[in-house]
Structure formats: structure tokens, C-alpha cells
């Protein structure tokens, strides 16, 4: 493996750089980390940027041969490929054994560590540009604070087996079916990685987690697409990856105010809960749950508010204004102002330098995941932990849109907030959420309905236009439709629109968008103004093929014409004259 050395029990886990166990491939994520390490060594040999320590967390990779051995030794393919539930598959994996080859190394590895670990998938297909698998497989954090090595060892191997099992969970199987790849060709390596963070009472978490994109799919009018985009959250990065409320900004213009309509809007849309590794009592022992060792806490329950001094402002309700930093009165609002505006932490400087280095080395736009810890009294230097590096696929085809007016009859919809680039002439199916029956309390049911429709499209090898309300791919069912990528995998064009009752806040969920980008899906975000021009009447007049209470599938006589100009993020979906009834 590039940059890695074989794991040796004498040197153990806390080795400078990567170590690996077994043989085979490191997988996409581990390769990305290895590349990141090389970039850091080349560009920042001192391991320091603006006073912040920058490095890759201690990591040991179980190469793909370990997975092969595990599958063969325990004859797991039969149940893995069956119709068994995800839980049954996970339990079968957990009840299986690594045999004699690797358990000694794992026991030795865990015996000398007493800090939380992240066990992450790094599959051969995952993170590749051609077939994206980002976010499909599970990641599991283990607290690793048990007194006995035995308990720590069991938690670790169960977590590894759980991540292995997730390859064969339903959504993954569906996806492989969609892309017509035999799931048995997939190989899974696993990353065992130190969680970057600090302990606060019974919880361990990073001070700031973040996802950076050096290309912004939703730039505002004043900001260029290549100025990039960053999402920040307090606590573990699960908040961002799941698409929950976090703080987003442009690294090139960190002081630019975010587009909130008013103070209430801002208060309602800043982070109020965070994820942490639970070092305390585990109430629900469940080796087949991703969140077994995690806690989801409210920021209002943090006893020592001074902890938030780099990331919060305080709401002065008397004057209806925000005061930067922690005050003795008023509610904390996580707007990261001290760090981004007053630069109490040099985070944005680090981010910009790292983006530049990564773009230079990969010769492409990049997506980066990171975590920041503040350090301890003994070692107070803040640390930027580099967790992942992925190139972003951006099409270069130049598309010119026709001159259109909003009132133009041939336009189904247009948007100035479109992701993707190119032309599509092959879609005649539209699946849409019925506006007359839409209610945010039914979004889980809507997601399930859409998955059923998508399965039919998958088996018929047809693509479709999908129109819905709120965020696609959110984990919060009150904000939009909580679908996983495989549930809408055959959608060629996705439209995210709003109803008058909803706030237009579009998703930047890392994995969901990475999948769409790599599949060249056109993603139309239709804000409140544009939504007025979406021709619902015309859609509802088309021939119904299938429907549920919440979702309808209609088929057109002629294909739609879809044009997306990626340079300007503009797009238009044109009706075809022959589709008129």
C-alpha cells in the first residue's frame, strides 16, 4: 500500500503514518488518505499551518484480503446474497470468526489503545469516480474505553464485521443491481482510525467537523463556483454527512453573511444538536447499530459554555441581535463567527492552504473531510485532522441555453441553481410528489413509495425525472425526503422545490451529492420564485402510469429536453410540443 508499512505489534497503532494488516487492496478511502498524507508531507513538512497541527489521524488499514479470507473461511456469501434482512446478515457476520490469521494482530492493536476509534469502510469501488459508493457502507465508532482488553477487542472486531456486513445490506444490493455490477466483485478494506477530538466528561468529540468542496454547486450571485464551499459542525461529522443542520460558508469569503431572511430564520437554522462518542454507560448494547457507541446531545446541555468560545455567538433577545462569542446571558448560536470572522482559530487559513495543495496535486476540484480538536491543557495546540480526500467530477462540455422567459409555454421549469452539465433528450417519465397530499409528517412513507417506483424503473432499465419538496437525501424527515441514494438511483433529473410553507435550504449532504455528481445527474434546485413557474397543471394532465396517495408516475408522449449550463449553474427543462394534450 502506498505510504503504508506493515503493522508490527512492537510499534503498534501509534505509528507515524499508515500501517496495514493482511494483503490485497487498501480501497478508495484509504488510498485517498494515503494520498493526503503524501500531500501534507510535501506541502507542509513541518506538520503545521498557522499554528495549527495538521496531520492524518493514526490509522491501520485491514486490506481487502482480510475481507476475502473472512468471507471464505465463514462461507458467508450464501446468507449475504440471500433475501435475509440487514440485521440477520449483520448478526451472521458478527457470529463469524477471523480465524487464526488476524485476530492476534487485532488483539495486540487494541490492547494498547484507550481512545475512541472509527471503523470505516474503504471498498475497492467506494469513492472511485466511475462508480460512486460514498456513504453506502456503514462507519462505526467504538468508545474503546472499557477496562478490559477483551471488551475493547470484541467491540472492535464486531465493528469491523458490521462494516463488512453493510456491503450486503439492502440498499447496497439494490445499488449494485442498478449499476449492473456483480456485488461479489466488490472487495472491502477497513480503516481503523483514531477519532480526532477531546474528552468532555462522558463524551468525546471533535471541536469542529467539516466538509470542504473546492467547487460550489450552489453559488450565490456574488460568489464564484470555484470559490468553494465548506460545511462546519460542532461534534462528529455525522451531523454534516447525514445532511442535518450545520453552518455553511465560502472559504474564499468567510466573512460574507449567510443568506438568512431574518434573525428568526437564522436561529431556526443553526445547529442545536451534536454527535459525540459516548464514553459513559451504553444503554442500548446493539452491535448491529451504527450508533451503538454514539450520543446525540443538545448544545444547550453543555455545562461549560466557554467551550463554545470559538464557534458561537450569543443571541441578545432584548435587542434581537447576535453578539460574537459566549456571553453570560442569551442562547448560544453556532455561527462559527469567532473562528471565521475574528480568526480566534486559524481554521480558514488552514482550509484554504489545504484546498490549494490538494487541487494542485490532484489536478481537479476536491472534496475534503476533516476534524479539529482544541488540544488539552498539556498539549494546547489545536489540531486539524485530515480525514478524507476525494476528487470531484465536473463536466467540461459547454452548453448554451436558449433564450427563454419565465412565462414561456414550452418551459416546464427553469432554475439558476442547477448542478451538472450537459443535455438530456431521453426522459419521458416523471415521478413527482403530489403537492395536494404532501405533508412533512409523511416524508418517510413518501421515501418508501419512491423507492418502490424506482425499483420498477430499475428492472425496466428506464430513467426518469423526479420532482419533490424539500431536501432530497436528508436524514431529517421534517426537512425533506429522507431517501438513500439507491432509492432514487434511476432518476436522471432531480428537482428539489418548495411549497410556500417550506424554507428553501438546499442540501449539501456530502455523500448524497457525491453520488449524484458522479452519475451525472442533473439536479435542479427551484427556489420559491422559480417554483411559481413550475407548471404543475401540465404535469398533472399527463397519462398516469402508477400512483400512490403521495406519489404519481406519469408518462409523456415525447421525451423532455433538458439543458444544463454548468458554467453558470443554469438549467431548463423544456416540454415537447407533442406532449400537449
Amino acid at each position, binding site marked *: 500500500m502506498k505510504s503504508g508499512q506493515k503493522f508490527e505489534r512492537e510499534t503498534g497503532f501509534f505509528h507515524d503514518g499508515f500501517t496495514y494488516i493482511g494483503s490485497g487492496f487498501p480501497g478508495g478511502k484509504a488510498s485517498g488518505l494515503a494520498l493526503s498524507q503524501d500531500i501534507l508531507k510535501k506541502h507542509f513538512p513541518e506538520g503545521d499551518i498557522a499554528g495549527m497541527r495538521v496531520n492524518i489521524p493514526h490509522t491501520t488499514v485491514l486490506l481487502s484480503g482480510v475481507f476475502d*479470507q473472512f468471507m471464505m473461511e465463514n462461507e458467508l456469501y450464501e446468507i449475504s446474497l440471500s433475501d435475509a434482512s440487514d440485521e440477520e446478515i449483520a448478526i451472521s457476520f458478527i457470529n463469524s470468526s477471523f480465524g487464526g490469521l488476524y485476530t492476534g494482530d487485532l488483539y495486540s492493536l487494541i490492547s494498547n489503545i484507550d481512545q475512541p476509534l472509527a471503523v470505516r469502510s474503504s471498498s475497492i469501488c467506494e469513492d472511485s469516480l466511475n462508480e460512486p459508493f460514498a456513504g453506502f457502507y456503514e462507519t462505526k465508532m467504538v468508545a474503546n474505553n472499557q477496562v478490559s482488553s*477483551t471488551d475493547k477487542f470484541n467491540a472492535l472486531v464486531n465493528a469491523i464485521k458490521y462494516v463488512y456486513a453493510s456491503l450486503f445490506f439492502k440498499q447496497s444490493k439494490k445499488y449494485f443491481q442498478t449499476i449492473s455490477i456483480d456485488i461479489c466483485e466488490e472487495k472491502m478494506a477497513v480503516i481503523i482510525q483514531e477519532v480526532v477530538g477531546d474528552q468532555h466528561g462522558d463524551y468525546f468529540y471533535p471541536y469542529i467537523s467539516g466538509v470542504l468542496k473546492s467547487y460550489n454547486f450552489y453559488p450565490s450571485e456574488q460568489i464564484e463556483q470555484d470559490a468553494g464551499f465548506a460545511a462546519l459542525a460542532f461534534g462528529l461529522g455525522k451531523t454534516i454527512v447525514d445532511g442535518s443542520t450545520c453552518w455553511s460558508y465560502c472559504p474564499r469569503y468567510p466573512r460574507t453573511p449567510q443568506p438568512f431572511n431574518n434573525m428568526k430564520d437564522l436561529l431556526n437554522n443553526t445547529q442545536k444538536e451534536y454527535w459525540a462518542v459516548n464514553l459513559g454507560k451504553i444503554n442500548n448494547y446493539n452491535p448491529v447499530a451504527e450508533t451503538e457507541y454514539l450520543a446525540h446531545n443538545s448544545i444547550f446541555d453543555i455545562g461549560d459554555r466557554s467551550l463554545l468560545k470559538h464557534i458561537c455567538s450569543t443571541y441578545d433577545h432584548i435587542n434581537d441581535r447576535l453578539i460574537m462569542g459566549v456571553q453570560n446571558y442569551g442562547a448560544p448560536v453556532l455561527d462559527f463567527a469567532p473562528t471565521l470572522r475574528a480568526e480566534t482559530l486559524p481554521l480558514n487559513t488552514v482550509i484554504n492552504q489545504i484546498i490549494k495543495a490538494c487541487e494542485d496535486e490532484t489536478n481537479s476540484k476536491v472534496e475534503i473531510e476533516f476534524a479539529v480538536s482544541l488540544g488539552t491543557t498539556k498539549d494546547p495546540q489545536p489540531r486539524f485532522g485530515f480525514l478524507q480526500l476525494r476528487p470531484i467530477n465536473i463536466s467540461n462540455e459547454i452548453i448554451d441555453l436558449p433564450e427563454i422567459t419565465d412565462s414561456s409555454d414550452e418551459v416546464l421549469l427553469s432554475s439558476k441553481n442547477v448542478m451538472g452539465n450537459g443535455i438530456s433528450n431521453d426522459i419521458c417519465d416523471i415521478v413527482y410528489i403530489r403537492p395536494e397530499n404532501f405533508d412533512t409528517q409523511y416524508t418517510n412513507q413518501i421515501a418508501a413509495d419512491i423507492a418502490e417506483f424506482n425499483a420498477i424503473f430499475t428492472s425496466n432499465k428506464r430513467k426518469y425525472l423526479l420532482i419533490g419538496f424539500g431536501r432530497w437525501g436528508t436524514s431529517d424527515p421534517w426537512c425533506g425526503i429522507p431517501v438513500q441514494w439507491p432509492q432514487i438511483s434511476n432518476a436522471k433529473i432531480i428537482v428539489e422545490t418548495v411549497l410556500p410553507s417550506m424554507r428553501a435550504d438546499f442540501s449539501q449532504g456530502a455523500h448524497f451529492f457525491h453520488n449524484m455528481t458522479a452519475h451525472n445527474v442533473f439536479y435542479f434546485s427551484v427556489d420559491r420564485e422559480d417554483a411559481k413557474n413550475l407548471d404543475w397543471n401540465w404535469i398533472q394532465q399527463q397519462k398516469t402510469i402508477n400512483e400512490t396517495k403521495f406519489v404519481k408516475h406519469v408518462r409523456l408522449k415525447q421525451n423532455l429536453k433538458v439543458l444544463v449550463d454548468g458554467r453558470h449553474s443554469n438549467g431548463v427543462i423544456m416540454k415537447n410540443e407533442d406532449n400537449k394534450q
Partner: protein
Amino acid sequence: MDKSFNAFKMAQDQFDAVADKLNLNEASRELLRTPMREYHFTIPVKMDDGTSKVFRGFRIQHNDALGPCKGGIRFHPQETVDTVRALSMWMTWKTAVVDIPLGGSKGGVICDPHNLSAREQEQICRGWIRQLHRNVGPLRDIPAPDVMTNGQHMLWMLDEYETITGEKYPGMITGKPVGMGGSLGRTEATGYGVIFTVREALKEMNLNIENTTASFQGFGNVSQYAIKLYNQLGGKALCVSCWDQQDQTSYAFYKKEGINLDELLNITDRFGGINKTKAKELGYEVLPGEKWIEIDCDILVPSAMENQITGENVNKISSNVKLVAEGANGPTTPEADEVLKKRGIFMIPDFLCNAGGVTCSYFEQVQCNMNYFWSKDEVLGKLDYKMTTAYHKVSKLAREKKLYMRDAAYMISVDRVVRASVSRGWI
């Protein structure tokens, strides 16, 4: 087997040499060169044909300074008390070298299970316990399976013990079937343990295991799992020998491209005998059993019986052999040892190399005493950790003091037992 060979004398000679190196006093030598307790008894059994037959049984408890005695029970027609004495002494060194809190013992019955029905074997097991129940048990001496005994025999013995005592003592005996107080990983433990030490030795010798070849003597449980793990690590097993019950001799099965463990297991009987005809059909050369030692390879793994590498055959070992890993107890005579030493062949001595079995038995006893059972990964992970740690302790001493590995292992073991005996005020 060479009739003049006396395993106990060999064990004593080995001990005496170490005692000299450690400069032990006379009391220590007296205590440790002979067993602390011996039980010799008869076991009358009503045979299936209505006749009565009396079998001779033994239990030799060599030393229990470090903890309760631990050792197997052998059913063998050529069993001798001196063999059992030697084996009990080796058990003391074995438990000590892997640093588990147990002493050493061994037992046996002179019988041939091939010629006994299951009922007759059960009667021998129960008779053995009836004679010894006061002297064995979880806090005194914990038996385990050995040559021609298995989990079923252990369960009969446990049942008899619990019937006599009126209590449940699953930790009284080890090697029980999984689900009946047995430990996961026990079946693999000895063979895997052999290869854990081979793996570490090769690392120290700067040899890539994937470029090595090996020849195994014996195709019982130890060899089967040793070959499995050795193959998984990338090594190539070229030859395996086994005992043919029908012909009452042994054969070696050789394949230049490497033997296929699964295909051989498919043509192997329950005693580890490989079907010659089918093996030939599968492309194996079938050679006389003693040829296993002459194979041109890197590693020899004697995993059958004691006294197999002797002064007579040691010079037949290929000049390419770099390592001998003793999967069996006492397979190398002192005379042969000297030759191996001179030739610079690295030795992993028996009581270190095959200590995986007793280590896992210890784990089984711990689990039984807790009445809480571990996962297979946990057992194998701890086993690897324990074996690897023990190997490096011995290897480090050998390097530092420029000792032969067997001598280094003996010195660690004997020193531990002597210290425990001194601490107890025995000597």
C-alpha cells in the same frame, strides 16, 4: 518406535543440562527431575462379549508449584509409565513457558481404542475417574484429551466426576465439545499455535513466509490446522505423513506443487489416515512414512509422536531446511538436537511450539469457572497474543545469552517453577 528409547530419561537429561546452566541447588534438582505424585491403578471393565478385562491406568503429577496440574490422557497400547512421566514433566515446562498459572501432569491407559466399542471406552473413562476423583479436579489437576482420546471421552469423565461429587464442575476437565463447556478455537489451538511461532521465527530470520515450503509429520488435528494456517499465510506445504491403521505403518504424501489440504481431508479417516489409492489418483506421490524428513524444503514440522528425529535420521534432513517446529512432544532426541544445533537449523522446541493447546485449555477452564464463554475471535486473538509473547521472550533470551532455543525455553520455564517452589517455601 525404538524400544530402547526412554522418554523420561531424555526429559531428565534435558532438565539436568538446564539445571547446570541455571546452577540449581540439589533440592531444586531433586524436586524437579522426578514427579511429585504418581498414581498407578487398574480399571476393570465388563466387555461387550461378556468377558472382563483389566486395564492399567496412570496419572503422573509432575509439579504444581505454579497452579493446578494440567495434562492430557492418552489411550495407547504401547503406553509406558516412563513416557507418561516425561510428558508430565514437559507439561510443567510448557505451562511455565507460556506463563499460565498451571502445573504439569499427564495420564494414560494402556489400551487400543481401535479395538474397543464406544461403551467399553466409556467404561474405561468412568473407571479412570472412579480411581482418581480425589486427586483430580478444577483446583487440583485438570485432564484433557491427548493421543486417541477426544471430547466425548472428556464428557464421560466429567459426568462420572460430577456424579461422584454431586456438584457441577465444568472446569474439572478441558477439551469438552463446544456447547458442553468446551471452548471455541480449541480444535485449532495447537496447530495454529505452532504456526504463530513459525511465523514469528521466520520474521526474525528475515524469511518471507510466502516463499517458504514445509514438510509435516502426522496428519492429526495439530498438522491439519497447522497446514491450514501455514497455507493461509502463504506458505506451501509439500508433504505430510500419516499412520495407516490398516497397514500398521506410515506413509508420506508428497506433491511438488504443494498439497491441497481440503482434498486430502476429504480422503482421510477419523484417525488421520489418508487413503493411498485416492491420493495417487489426485497426483500425490505416496512414499514410505519416514521420507517426510528428507523432503527438500525450508521447514520441518514433526507433529506426530516423540522420538522421530533421531541420531539415525537427522543427517537425512535436507541442507535447505532452516527451521524445525516441534508440533509433537519430544520428537527430537538430544543426539539429533546436537546435530541440528551444529548445522544452525533454528529450533522451536516442543513445549513452546505446541503450547497453543494447553493455553487454550487454560482459556477453557477460565471460561468454565466463570461460566461465561468467549467468542472464537477472542480465544484466537488471545492465543496468538500469548504464544507470540512467549515466543519472543524465549527468542530474546536465546539471542542475548547466545543459547539454543530449547535451552532458552527450558531456562525460562525451570526458572519460573523454581522461583514458585522457593516462594512457597518448598525448597
